[in-house]
């Protein structure tokens, strides 16, 4: 078997792999409440992980939190109420996106404040950079005068 043949076989195998994957995923029919469960769980931080949502984490606590969410969704509780249930127990930490209240507004406004400060700094720097250009043009007439004065003086010294 030459290299080309091996290469071709590999390519074909890859294509078969690519096409067969969606088939597996499509076969599963999702519970209609799962959408709501996912919405809630994706916005909640798994309490024992630093930066993973309850929906994505494989930790036991996250799985059990997911189970609690499923039971509550199945019982017909509102999404906001379920979110609040976890907030009441785990505090600000449980939201992956911090709420805009208390000192948290600083987290949201901070970048924009920094951008504003940066813009002001850039403007003032630009102003400063442009100033040296205008200075020589102002001093040109005086240079010209000095030159003319000198020329006059020199001419006066010379007897024609």
């Amino acid at each position, binding site marked *: 078997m030459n290299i080309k043949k091996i290469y071709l076989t590999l390519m074909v195998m890859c294509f078969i792999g690519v096409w067969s994957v969606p088939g597996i995923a499509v076969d599963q029919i999702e519970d209609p409440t799962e959408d709501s469960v996912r919405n809630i769980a994706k916005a909640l931080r798994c309490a024992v992980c630093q930066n993973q949502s309850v929906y994505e984490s494989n930790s036991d606590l996250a799985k*059990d939190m997911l189970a*609690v969410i499923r039971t509550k969704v199945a019982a017909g509780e509102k999404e906001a109420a379920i979110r609040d249930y976890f907030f009441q127990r785990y*505090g600000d930490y449980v939201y992956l996106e911090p709420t805009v209240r208390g000192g948290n507004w600083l987290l949201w406004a901070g970048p924009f404040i920094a951008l504003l400060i940066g813009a002001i700094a850039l403007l003032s720097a630009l102003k400063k950079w442009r100033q040296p250009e205008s200075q020589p043009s102002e001093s040109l007439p005086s240079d010209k005068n000095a030159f003319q004065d000198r020329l006059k003086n020199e001419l006066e010294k010379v007897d024609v």
Partner: protein
Amino acid sequence: MKNLWKVVLLSVVVIILGLFALGLGNDPRNIPSPLVGRPASPFTAPALDEGPPITLESFRGRWVLVNFWGSWCGSCVREHAYLMELARMTAGRDDFIMIGVDFKDTREGARQFLANLGDPGYRQVFDPEQKVAIDWGVYGAPETYLVDPAGIIRHKHVGPLYPGWFEQVALPLMGKKP
């Protein structure tokens, strides 16, 4: 003007570095509980000894120490000797009671744990799906809550209780609200 910007820039850098240094000192496990000062979630849950279910409200009128643990938890082994001592020490008090919540565990594992390290003698809730634990905002084990006679959570301790904890933390709280 030039100096002003230098000062502003330097102070911003210093503030950021300062916050960073403070953050490094934080224990990621020690997250402030929003539950302190709020009513404890009521529960009626199965007992580890398969006796009658345990109801939190039945302890109303007394201070309740609720200790969350599991036989899978290493720090709980370290903590256990103090829990045994605390149970012995407070056995005579009629204003204080201890209960345990064994969560995310098997009955077999928990019984083995108590057989090996000793049974402190107080009642144990069995919570394999950590329903009570999540309802109480528990992150891991061991975690301990002190609930006052009116059912309000007065203190949460993350990590193992240590010798002297009762005198240093619990008694002053109990003195304030008898």
